[in-house]
């Protein structure tokens, strides 16, 4: 049984919330998947930022572009068993659940789900293995990015993860690692803070007990 350091969990939570991440707790991965589906249900329809031939389009969204009618949840990096559960739950609600072909939906999807390798308490950061292109896109083109993070995998600060990272990057095969700290943001116009300039409008982190 991996150990959980509650002080690190608390710090992680505080720092992630400080940068507008929504932080929730769940008993296990199944509960997190349930959260994904509920989040998708509750959100406003996804705006389609570009043309997508086969997609059914709804009324214009707040930014003057059409909205997507059939909601899309992407979870490219889930194991087969969990993916099957998520897929079934999505189907039950009329969403489509995908694990590949994200390039076909670059106009935007509703929810992208990933599981973090680890977290960094000092900044409320999730480190995500984004070697696969589909996994990378899920966290980029979704309006809401949901990341599950095991509480036992939270480290105090960046230097503390150097060895883990080194091991991951050391074997000569290409890797792509992403540290995520809050949603996409900018302050480029008059230094006014705004979220969602390119990537997700919202970041939700689900802290898993196991």
């Amino acid at each position: 049984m991996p150990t959980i350091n509650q002080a690190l969990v608390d710090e992680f939570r505080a720092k992630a919330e400080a940068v507008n991440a929504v932080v929730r707790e769940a008993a296990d991965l199944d509960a997190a998947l349930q959260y994904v589906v509920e989040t998708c249900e509750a959100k406003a329809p996804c705006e389609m930022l570009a043309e997508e031939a086969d997609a059914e389009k709804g009324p214009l969204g707040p930014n003057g572009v059409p909205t997507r009618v059939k909601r899309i949840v992407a979870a490219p990096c889930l194991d087969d068993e969990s993916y099957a559960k998520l897929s079934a739950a999505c189907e039950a609600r009329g969403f489509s659940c995908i694990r590949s072909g994200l390039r076909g939906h670059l106009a935007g999807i509703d929810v992208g789900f990933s599981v973090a390798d680890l977290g960094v308490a000092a900044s409320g950061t999730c480190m995500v293995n984004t070697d696969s292109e589909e996994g990378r896109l899920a966290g980029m083109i979704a309006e809401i990015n949901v990341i599950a993070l095991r509480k036992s995998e939270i480290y105090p600060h960046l230097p503390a993860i150097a060895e883990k990272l080194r091991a991951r990057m050391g074997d000569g095969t290409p890797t792509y690692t992403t540290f995520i700290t809050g949603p996409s943001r900018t302050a480029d116009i008059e230094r006014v803070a705004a979220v969602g300039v390119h990537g997700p409008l919202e970041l939700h982190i689900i802290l898993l007990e196991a």
Partner: protein
Amino acid sequence: MHSAPKNYSEYHKQLDEALEDKFLRNTLDTFAVAYRANRETIFKEVDERGLIAQIADAKDDACRHMEELYAQFKEQAEKRGVHVHRAATAEEANAIIARIARENDVKRVVKSKSMTAEEIQLNPYLEKEGLIVDETDLGEWIIQLRHEGPSHMVMPAIHLSRYQVAEDFTRETGVKQDAEDIQRLVKVARVQLRRKFIAADMGVSGCNFAIAENGAVSTVTNEGNARMVTTLPRVHVAIAGLDKLVPTLDVALTALQVLPRNATAQRLTSYVTLMDGAGECKANPDGRKIMHVVFVDNGRSEIARDPLFSQIFRCVRCGACANVCPVFRLVGGHKMGYIYIGAIGLILTYFFHGHDKAKVLCQNCVGCEACKSVCAGGIDLPRLIREIRSRLTAEEGNPLPMSLLSSVMKNRKLFHRLLKYAAFAQKPFTRGTQFQRHLPAMFLGKHSFKALPAIADKSFRDRWPALSPRVENPRYRVALFGGCAQDFVYPEQLEAAVKVLAAHGVAVDYPEAQTCCGLPLEMMGQRPTSKEVARQNVEAFSAGNYDAVITLCASCASHLKHSYPEILQGDPLIFKAQAFADKVTDFSSFVHDVLGLRPEDFNNTGEKTTYHAACHICRGLGVKEAPRALIADAADYVPCNEEEVCCGFGGTYSMKFPEISARLLEKKLDNIRETGASRVVMDCPGCVMQIRGGAEKQGLGVKVSHIAELLAENMKK
């Protein structure tokens, strides 16, 4: 797009324009204040000084091993399917990138932020090749639409208002955009740029760290555009200066604890990516990214070999040196660098863009050291700027007035005779006051913002024989270093100090052979003369076996203490210079820390007194507590807003850039006025000159004095 002033008159015109830009002034003002506070808060969680020292050491080491790191990076990256190039010049780098585009049949390019790409002027080059290039960082995109260059390394569009942005977006989209709704304006970029990401064949990114141990490049962004740029297109080109090479992940992770904190007061940016190797890319038939890393030299190997300037390699491009620069705050980035902005911008302009572009820009540093105190790499930026001025002088030769000045300054007796003559010659203008009241305004022009001080009738050195106190069984034996301003303009400040010291059992000596400390000469790029006066001073004090060398001038103190051992490196006098420097102590620290004066030593008058922390006392010497405690001992200390911000004097700076000096002074006086104090004290006669001159001109009704005068007046007999 980018311009550098060729001469002073052109530059003064540009500065005037910037100073008239109300929006810019307000924005940068608000930013400066907010940044300072936010930075302080966010650094409380980490060991700021420790981390900065670690970065400095690691980057110095990387600089020394640049060639090995390059070879290692290349080997590791190639093993992972990446093509690694090295360009000696900007031209070569552009040609390599254009060739990559041609070979891969690229039509459209998307870019994420890269200062190195700005440096080599990549966009115009690629556009000439017929490519469509789109910036995807919001700020960069805005300035691209306006055909401007960035005015800040991290916030490239900070000089623009929402109205300007709304206009540009209206033009770009053909739809009227509402300027009042910034959130919506940001989403305009979301929609427009998503389409460009999708259509692009090649992505060009910058690189914050090139990690040799595994051939990884990294990007650091808040918007997430670099993730898109490096993921969607078939081809990825990362541009990295050779200075971005670091040996290990650990170095990058350490620097990442400082870079975002320093740049935008964030713990970490929203996204940091690490890419080692040509990873998966489904847009290519073989499912692999076509990935190139182009290292740019463009003068960097020359910098790496320079014993002094190699510290430039520590720069992580956080922009903090601009954020805290009082001159940047007034005139903005377009007037404070060619492509790179702020203190580091002045320096890099000299190395990357030619001495010609740097020669006027490099003069616009007031020397307040605010940048040095926040630099993520602990770079001694003010020193490097002074050094560049010296080099420019050496390269270009001295204009006649400078040659004259130099020969006068080398001869102390002549210099002092001239000053005494000036005391006599000014008589018609002073009418016995401390100001040169009656200089016709037309002679003053832009300099009329403050009353100019008069040279004292009798210099301190001439008063000394009659003044020199006898102290029986002294606790300490010290020598006083007067400095020109106090010796010849404000001798009463030195007299006050002598009174305080003698009353507390300190035997004081005033070595007659001392002369100007040489800082003004350094600021004017007169290195050979500044060395000469340094030698004279070291010799002048070497005879007496003093416990300390006391000075009341923070600028002299910081120069004597820190610069002498540097500029006399390799000189036969270096050991004496070091011993001398070790003894140099500012008046407040000596009185407070060494003599241990406390409230019981003073009659506290309760006079409301505020403080101006001279740049060279609070940053130059790191003295913060002693003067404030002493004021509170002798009077009612009321803190002043922006107490540690430069008053705009900067020695010769106020003569060279009076328009900027005047605005800095204006701010200082406003802040002093707001305290409601009837007196302001400081540890520097230069600041007294500036602030007293301004107070006099404005009729501020606040007494301006050196802290020694306050203490002498209120000392218990």
